[in-house]
């Protein structure tokens, strides 16, 4: 009897406290689920994205929550970068009733997890998955947030034509959608704009041996005007060293995968490389200010722009929740899909009129003397961007 009464008192007290907290802020508590690779092969992308995401979520909660009324609790599950574990995590989060789901920076686990949240009508976003087929492979609840491969490829092709390059050699790897499709999108736009593809090569991810491939490139006659690849570490530095070692001097175009300190650490052979990135921090720009703020809060500057793109997601979500006035699945989905020109650190984000991979600005940078300098920032022309 005493025990029941104590329980009852305790329960009432707790309920009152909870009610008081909600009542005071006029807020509702919701959970957002994150099934991302905090260890394993995706950790280099998912860890920094999560760091930015949490920082923005804390800021939004402090200001009263998403749309001014939803205080968010995060349920973060590590998927060990395993697609099966991602599916399991997504199932648990969906069963728990999360209102929004974040999936890893890769197409396969994002599509697998998205199919579960799609069925449960929970809007879902990939951290920095760039494959433009992610969204259509899942359905109308799946959203991208990062500049898509076909957009990056379009800007690179336009840059190549503007530089007067007529022929291009394309190096790709069938081991991932990113390393295969991005160069293919590039070749498509480059040819549409009047360029020719002088040759194509392939490599295996992580192989690091490019001697055989560059010997073939060196034997090409005439030499290509430009070499384009979406290779990233460790393949890109190994490729570049082997290529310059074989005496090939053609300029190189790369993608956002080489936006890391390793590329600038390669010395003189990196001079003249032009590559895409989600954003380049300059003094006074919103991204530059974010980098300064992040360093002030954590004591270290962001190691990569993924911190910034992760930080942008809660603010994109906030804009959608404000527009929808609710976090109910269908309404939130529609609000997200109709977002236009939401200001973010690296420019603005638009979903209206897209297949839910956002239309957003991409920056081209050039490496000279161990440092990057921005060449231009532009939003790819939708008429030129190849279909996914």
């Amino acid at each position, binding site marked *: 009897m005493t025990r029941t009464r104590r329980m009852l008192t305790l329960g009432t007290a707790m309920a009152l406290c909870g009610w008081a907290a909600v009542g005071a802020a006029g807020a509702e508590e919701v959970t957002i689920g994150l099934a991302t690779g905090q*260890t*394993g*092969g995706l*950790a*280099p992308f998912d*860890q*920094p994205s999560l760091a930015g995401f949490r920082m923005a979520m804390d800021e939004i909660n402090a200001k009263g929550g998403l749309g001014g009324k939803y205080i968010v609790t995060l349920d973060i599950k590590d998927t060990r970068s395993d697609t099966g574990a991602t599916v399991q995590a997504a199932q648990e989060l969906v069963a728990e009733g999360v209102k929004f789901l974040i999936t890893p920076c890769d197409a396969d686990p994002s599509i697998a997890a998205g199919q579960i949240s799609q069925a449960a009508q929970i809007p879902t976003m990939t951290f920095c998955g760039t494959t433009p087929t992610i969204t259509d492979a899942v359905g109308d609840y799946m959203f991208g947030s990062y500049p898509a491969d076909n957009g990056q490829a379009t800007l690179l092709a336009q840059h190549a034509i503007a530089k007067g390059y007529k022929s291009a050699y394309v190096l790709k790897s*069938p081991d991932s959608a990113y390393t295969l499709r991005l160069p293919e999108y590039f070749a498509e736009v480059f040819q549409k704009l009047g360029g020719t593809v002088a040759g*194509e*090569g*392939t490599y*295996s991810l*992580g*192989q*690091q*041996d490019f*001697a*055989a*491939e560059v*010997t*073939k490139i060196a*034997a090409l006659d005439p030499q290509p005007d430009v070499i384009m690849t979406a290779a990233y*570490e*460790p393949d890109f*530095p*190994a490729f570049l*060293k*082997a290529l*310059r*070692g*074989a*005496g090939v001097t053609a300029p190189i175009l790369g993608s956002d995968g080489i936006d*890391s*300190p*390793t590329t*600038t*650490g*390669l*010395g*003189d*052979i990196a001079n003249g490389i032009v590559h895409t990135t989600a954003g380049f921090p300059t003094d006074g720009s919103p991204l530059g200010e974010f980098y300064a703020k992040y360093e002030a809060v954590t004591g270290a500057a962001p*190691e*990569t722009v993924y911190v910034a793109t992760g930080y942008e997601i809660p603010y994109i979500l906030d804009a959608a929740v404000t527009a929808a006035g609710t976090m109910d699945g269908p309404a939130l989905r529609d609000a997200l899909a109709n977002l236009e020109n939401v200001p973010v650190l690296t420019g603005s984000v638009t979903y209206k009129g897209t297949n839910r991979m956002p239309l957003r600005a991409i920056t081209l940078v050039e490496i000279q003397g161990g440092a990057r300098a921005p060449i231009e920032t532009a939003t790819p022309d939708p008429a030129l961007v190849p279909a996914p």
Partner: protein
Amino acid sequence: MEFFLQQLLNAVSLGGIYALLALGLAVVFSIVALINFAHGELMTVAGYVLFVCILYAVPLPIAVVAAIGAAAVAAAATERLAFRPMRRADPTSLMLTSFAVSAILKVLFQNGISARPKPVPLPPELSGTLTFGPVRLGTVPLASILVTCLSLAALTLFLKRTVMGKAMRAAAEDFQVLRLMGIRANRVIAAAFALSGMLAGISAALWVAQRGSVDPLMGFVPVLKAFVASVIGGLGSLSGAVAGGFALGIAEVLFQAYLPEAALPFRDAFVLGVVILILLWRPDGLIPAKTGRRS
């Protein structure tokens, strides 16, 4: 002809690195019947030591020696902490232990250092090229050929001329008899791990010089190549490991050079096809170990 010569040189240079990697596995396997899948993480340890040394402007030769030493210490430490308690376990348990060591080290690197790659910028002299008549060779590939030859020579001398080397060869053939001769088992095994760690450190220096960075998962590909090479060569056989390394390197480069473009994405399938053919022809590998012990 020039194209062929150049590709042959490319093949020898790659085969050299694979030979060094496979030797590291073989030294340990020959004595304790363990395929050490944590061998790649020993390379990562060496890579991080290189990174720190170069960050603090330590001269390169000292940095490389420190990296090799660190890998040897790390190898001996894993032996003491993880493999010695499992000494009497069967080979499968030992192999699983090595997977566990590998997984633990990877997560420690990811959460303790950084999930992002750390740059290891090398002096510009090391990215130069030398021309020999019709063929060209980069400084790093040339260094791999020379270092492989030197390491093989040093290893042979060590195994043939020193007491510990002889003890290790004897242990590979019959461990019980070696113990009956009064040689301390723990010391021989610890030496084998340290030697394997040194080989991991040497190959890490060459591997990192090629890639320009070190990251937590860096060891996966090399240990896979080393495993394939030592299986082709004959598990536990040192000369087999070298032969297997070169066979793998040559197969990879020649297929990359001569497969038609449409078949290139399947290059690894062709290479592994050759591996299967070799194993059908010689199930125990090219140069089988004398004991015939298998995992």
